[in-house]
């Protein structure tokens, strides 16, 4: 791991004593250091640092256009950064099993494949036997219990149905890292409730490192182990609020004092940041 130690980067204070050669805190899955990203004239990130803990759910909350999707794309390795480093426990993004629900879910499914084949698609890259692949699919279908006709093509589906397919495709590989970019934006009330419960269960059980972007503050706090608040561009971390109420968290959780405290705090920070000139 330490082979990737970049020369000249100061070890952050948070590194614990027992591993002083580490330049990231223990339990970190994804380490971002000195990340810089510009689009033409606009600077999105300038020397941005972040540690994403392993097996936790991190909610990202920030204003439109602050660079949340951009950040995820850079971590996922599909958008080059101008400078800086992004490491997965010393590995590369390529070597990690990633699930990604794109914000732009409609353009990310394959219209030439039926929904079922879209969901099955990533399994072939996992070195699984046919039987294993099928059992993955069966398990997924079972746990989702979808009433959706998966023999349709995406363009025959409603927006929400396409988004659901996109979510199922991201989950079927049992990802090590899961990126959810506004994954419930088009789903109906019932489905959102169902998925919040289901995802918590699955992700915590499998200790999947998750990055969730949501503009619904209730949702962001409810699902999070950490709520990451971002500022406007050039983007910094405004605050990183831990939220470690026991799971499963349900609608009832939203009326607990801990939840309200965290939510209020998040809102304060967010509004302060957004309203800065």
């Amino acid at each position, binding site marked *: 791991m330490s082979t990737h130690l970049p020369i000249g980067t100061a070890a952050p204070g948070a590194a614990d004593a027992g591993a002083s050669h580490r330049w990231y805190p223990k339990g970190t899955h994804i380490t971002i250091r000195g990340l810089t990203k510009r689009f033409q004239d606009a600077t999105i990130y300038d020397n941005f640092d972040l540690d994403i803990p392993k097996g936790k759910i991190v909610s990202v909350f920030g204003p439109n256009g602050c660079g949340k999707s951009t950040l995820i794309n850079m971590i996922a390795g599909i958008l080059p950064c101008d400078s800086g480093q992004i490491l997965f426990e010393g590995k590369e993004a390529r070597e990690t099993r990633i699930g990604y629900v794109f914000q732009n879910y409609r353009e990310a*499914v394959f219209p030439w494949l039926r929904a079922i084949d879209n969901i099955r698609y990533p399994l072939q890259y996992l070195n699984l036997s046919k039987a294993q692949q099928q059992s993955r699919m069966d398990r997924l279908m079972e746990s989702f219990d979808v009433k959706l006709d998966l023999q349709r093509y995406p363009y025959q589906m409603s927006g929400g149905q396409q988004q659901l397919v996109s979510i199922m495709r991201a989950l079927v590989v049992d990802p090590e890292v899961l990126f959810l970019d506004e994954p419930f934006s088009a789903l109906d009330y019932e489905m959102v409730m169902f998925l919040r419960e289901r995802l918590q269960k699955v992700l915590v059980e499998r200790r999947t490192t998750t990055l969730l972007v949501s503009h619904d503050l209730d949702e962001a706090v409810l699902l999070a182990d950490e709520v990451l608040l971002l500022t406007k561009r050039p983007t910094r971390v405004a605050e990183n609020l831990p939220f470690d109420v026991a799971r499963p968290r349900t609608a009832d959780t939203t009326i607990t004092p801990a939840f309200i405290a965290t939510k209020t705090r998040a809102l304060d920070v967010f509004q302060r940041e957004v309203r800065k000139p």
Partner: protein
Amino acid sequence: MSLAHRANAFGARLRPLFGIAALIGLWAFVHATRAVDPVLLPSPLEALAAFWNGLAHGTLWGDFFKTIVRTVTSFGLALVIAVPLGIVLGSNEKIYESIEFAIDFFRSTPASAMFPLFLVLFGVGEATKIAVAAFGAALAILFNVAYGVMSARKQRQLAAKVMGAPRWRVLTDVILLESMPQVFVGMRSGVSIALVIVIVAEMFIGSTDGLGQRIMNAQTIFDMPDMYASIFAAGLLGYVMNLVFLVAERRFVHWGGK
């Protein structure tokens, strides 16, 4: 409703015939008004009679068949070479840019100007005709496929990449399908070009059969009905081959435009 629907579908089937009818009508009109001397432009009926006689009793079918075989062979060859190459080139802009010159250069050079070169390389036999037609068709296919690949939208490629697809799988699973409409345009251009070049080659590179040679002979001895019958056969062949791809595309690219 179902009846009207069926009648409608029937009408749709027949629609291409209107086009043929209009074309022949125009021809008959020009002929009837004697705007063009009848010796130079026979009536559609004469040409049709020549076509029919040629097919039924004459050698037209043999020539027709020869041209079909040559066209299909050279098109097949072109397809096999140009589609994979086009995908690879299109997905690698640097390489494409450096060979773009050659592609545009040869696309803009008449096949007949290339004959001497191909004759040198492939001799005066069958091989030259097929090679030069395959070359021309391959350029068109290559150009279209590479263009389709280059201008394919990126989002789905990125999605596949994130899902762990290796580069070549992204090519085959996403880019190729994303650029399918352009690939079909390429194939339709390619098949027409292959046919055109085969006919020109039959005209100008020594040949004892084929529609091109037939057109040339008919022209030399001023048998205009037979010349137009042969031209008609060539055009018909082109239309039918295009139709195959048209239907294939409708079937296959069901997601197009959505």
